[in-house]
């Protein structure tokens, strides 16, 4: 192995360097200048995001444990963009609420560690790296969920997240051990050759699936989602719902499409059932929510169900569309969470009822929210429509018309509750509306990027071409 081959790990190395820099900053910067760390971290991460777009080559390091190619590289960039927006949106919260308690840097350290874990997870070439990445991406988030140490809900969120994640990863590990027993290797490349459709393999795969299903919060591993989203700080909820979910979907896709291809006849049925359950349960529970964060939690469960439609296709169309959809989903959901964050930061209000009459006091925020919700619901011409349409097309391309039909029924259900929020903001008038306020620069920039993303990503087709061409690697 040459040192130059570390260049293809530059995402990881750079991010690690940034994390360490922030840590060093925390140790050595005097107390009264701590707030500069926020600016420093955002600036450094911005640079990291930009350098991520430099081209890369397909490589495999550490004897196949770590691998990267155009698609993985692209997906890391997608995650980077998401995290960058997230940082912009949380900057105000950090500076106003957290830095005063002298613990803002942990946010960055933990968040970056978690992102690093995701890098490793999606770059993994064997189950060991995968497992380490999975855990590294989950554990810091659990710490972050329990971040507001004086808030009981936050601690509850943390404990729920970590216990359920531990259970899921334990079950997953048990499954991996079965796969290891049957194939004699933990390397994906060896497993592809060795794997056959035996009972033990299938059981192993199903158990293994639990770990990722937990991260994507698929039914029946979704129980933690709403509680954690509600209790955790909004930034973390949005991180969980967007970045964490996206990375997990991506690696699940890689594993299903490459390693477990021989078991396709099994996981197709499994995903079929789970997709239907996830969509229905997510949507039906979302109907009755009063709290914005819980609402978005269930909505994100339902969205995960839609993503499975691309997964079940199992072809290049599916691969490309999932990535495309996740990219769009990142922008849409971040926009929604960004608005919730802004309002919660200024007024502390988080219920849908509090949003009544928002348009008349804060038109811009409510427009952003509306766009985000429409994108989540899949209304043209915003990007979400294209993502959903292509997902349905991908599923239909393998003949799953009934599934597509159920999915579109769910789109209609979901539209109902998205419109409830729109109704509160636009249609209702309130005696006690959220007063007008002006966001700080970072938040406005964060929201602006998401809005541009929502409006442009769908209509701009070369992006899809690009993803499609990259995704040939996995099929």
């Amino acid at each position, binding site marked *: 192995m040459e040192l130059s081959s570390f260049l293809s790990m530059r995402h990881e190395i750079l991010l690690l360097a940034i994390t*360490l820099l922030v*840590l*060093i900053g*925390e*140790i050595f910067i005097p107390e009264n200048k701590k707030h500069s760390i926020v600016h420093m971290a955002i600036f450094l991460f911005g640079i990291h995001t930009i350098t991520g777009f430099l081209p890369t080559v397909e490589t495999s390091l550490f004897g196949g444990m770590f691998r990267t190619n155009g698609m993985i590289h692209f997906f890391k960039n997608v995650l980077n963009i998401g995290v960058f927006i997230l940082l912009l949106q949380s900057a105000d919260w950090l500076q106003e609420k957290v830095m005063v308690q002298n613990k803002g840097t942990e946010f960055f350290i933990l968040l970056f560690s978690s992102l690093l874990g995701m890098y490793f997870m999606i770059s993994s070439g064997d189950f060991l790296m995968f497992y380490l990445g999975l855990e590294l991406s989950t554990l810091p988030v659990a710490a972050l969920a329990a971040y507001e140490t004086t808030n009981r809900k936050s601690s509850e969120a943390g404990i729920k997240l970590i216990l359920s994640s531990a259970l899921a990863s334990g079950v997953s590990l048990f499954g991996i051990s079965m796969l290891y027993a049957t194939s004699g290797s933990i390397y994906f490349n060896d497993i592809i050759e060795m794997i056959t459709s035996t009972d033990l393999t299938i059981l192993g795969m199903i158990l293994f699936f639990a770990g990722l299903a937990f991260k994507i919060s698929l039914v029946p591993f979704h129980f933690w989602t709403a509680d954690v989203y509600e209790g955790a700080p909004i930034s973390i909820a949005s991180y969980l719902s967007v970045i964490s979910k996206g990375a997990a979907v991506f690696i699940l896709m890689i594993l299903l499409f490459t390693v477990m291809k021989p078991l396709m006849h099994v996981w197709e049925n499994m995903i079929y059932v789970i997709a239907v359950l996830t969509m229905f349960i997510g949507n039906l529970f979302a109907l009755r929510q009063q709290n914005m964060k819980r609402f978005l939690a269930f909505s994100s469960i339902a969205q995960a169900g839609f993503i499975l439609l691309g997964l079940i296709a199992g072809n290049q169309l599916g691969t490309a569309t999932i990535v495309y959809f996740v990219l769009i989903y990142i922008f849409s959901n971040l926009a929604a969470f960004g608005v919730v964050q802004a309002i919660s930061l200024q007024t502390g209000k988080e219920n849908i009822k509090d949003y009544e009459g928002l348009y008349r006091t804060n038109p811009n925020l409510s427009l952003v929210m509306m766009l985000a919700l429409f994108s989540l619901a899949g209304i043209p011409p915003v990007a979400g429509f294209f993502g959903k349409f292509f997902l349905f097309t991908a599923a239909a391309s393998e003949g799953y018309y009934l599934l597509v039909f159920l999915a579109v029924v769910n789109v209609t259900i979901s539209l109902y509750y998205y419109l409830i929020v729109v109704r509160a903001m636009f249609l209702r008038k309130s005696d006690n509306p959220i007063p007008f306020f002006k966001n700080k620069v970072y938040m406005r920039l964060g929201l602006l990027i998401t809005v541009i993303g929502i409006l442009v990503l769908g209509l701009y087709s070369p992006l899809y071409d690009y993803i499609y061409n990259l995704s040939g690697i996995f099929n």
Partner: protein
Amino acid sequence: MGSEAIIVFLIAGIVLVAGANFLSNLISHKSDNPQKREPYESGMTTIGPTWVQFKVGYYLFAILFLIFDVEVAFLIPWAVVFKDFGAIAFIEVLIFLVILGLGLMYAWKKGALKWE
């Protein structure tokens, strides 16, 4: 001697303790009174529950130990094969230790090592 030694010593230990206990029970003089069954507390009766909440410092150090002990677990295999690998192993472990050291410094800075 193979791995069964561990069983042998386990049994030997149990036999030792159980045997001595048995012997002691056999030959010791026995008397019973309520005071004898009280916990020893400088002659006073115990006030309140004994199994009380402990200060969090103990847990904190337990957690720190957990982290650093695991790190030892990683260093041991490294140390065993270090001679065969040389430069690469050295650099890698240097990175590892630097991060670990930073972690320690962080804990230090945050007052986790302070016993109050």
